[in-house]
């Protein structure tokens, strides 16, 4: 439940919102809790908010883990 999902920022909007791409799934999240977010940055997303910026390698590592988790448990961890 406290797991944060890595995602790539693909668009920044007004009102401190951004569109992110998490392994193909797009969502709108708030960037209210992180400073200086730009397109191309990778962020950890939790409960509809970006909570931290991470580097691409870290993002991909965690994403791989989540894919494995989903495959094993058969349900959608990312939603």
């Amino acid at each position, binding site marked *: *439940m*406290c*797991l*944060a999902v890595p995602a790539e920022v693909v668009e920044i909007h007004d009102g401190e919102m951004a569109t992110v791409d998490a392994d193909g799934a797009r969502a709108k999240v*708030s960037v*209210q*809790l*992180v*400073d200086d977010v730009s397109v191309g940055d990778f962020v*950890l997303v*939790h*409960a*509809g*908010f970006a*909570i*931290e910026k*991470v*580097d691409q*390698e*870290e993002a991909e*590592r*965690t994403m791989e*883990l989540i894919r494995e*988790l989903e495959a*094993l*448990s058969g349900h959608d961890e990312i*939603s």
Partner: protein
Amino acid sequence: MEKIKSQPGDLTLMEVCGTHTMAISRAGLRPLLEPGVRLISGPGCPVCVTSDTDIDRAIATASIPDVTMATFGDMIRVPGTEGSLADAVAQGAEVRVVYSPLEALELARGNPERRVVFLGVGFETTAPTVAATLLQAREQELANFYVLSFHKLVPPALRALLALDEFDVDGFILPGHVSVIIGSDAYGFVSSEFGVPCVITGFEAADILQAVYRLMVMKGEGQPAVENEYSRAVRPAGNEKALRVMGEVFEPADAEWRGLFVIPGSGLVLREEFRRFDAGSWDVELPEPARDRGCRCGEILCGRIRPPECPFFAAACTPDNPIGPCMVSSEGTCASYFLYCQEDD
């Protein structure tokens, strides 16, 4: 793994993160590490530590006719004194599952005739997101959005456990994403005041094994410290902006942890200036507290016993038919054990 096996020692290590509980069970690490290293699960699942009284308050609030309760999915089936939110829905309560407090805000905007109450459960990873949402609600001057806060803080819980006479743990594996928010410095007291080493780590089996190894080394050398093995995401001071937002809206208060006791300063309540958003201040009728069901969730949360030692485990209490929160939550100790460890016993 070989390095771990070659280390001398008989250690008990506690993890305090639902995702770690799951990862350890899934990778079958417990039997692999024993007997030299015993991995136990502490109160790392915020859903699991929500008290009966708090669940009762959530149910009573959701049952008010003009209230729409918005909640994370995990909370729906957690039993209170007389049933769960799911049961309340069957009685006519309006409850919506959301993935973000922002969705609850949308619900309030779109349904001005309803009072929308967001059920705030979660540790420091989640609390800032709820705080940020409340700041938006205030800015937008929303009159029908409320929060029922059962948020809890991890460091005070660690402190309370460490202070118990019977608590005897040689090291902590600390949560990754809570630490992203609070920072590695927040745990300094664990090693400096109590002499217990800690490692903050990610969720892969390899990360957890690395943490186990480092804890064994620190214990063996008598050099307890807080090590950050997740430094790509966790900074010493954490996410200061998120902490500031959280502190603007919430303040610490005493809180009851299910199966444990009241831990001072371990819960979050809305500050005075946000009181008009606080559904916790509403007058609702609560049922008489239940007699002891006999479920041993509390001892499991303290790491004193393992799931199979509870008489209900895998018999009366299963993921499909859970009695206590340790089984209800997908990250609960009993749920993880049930899914992954049955064969080991």
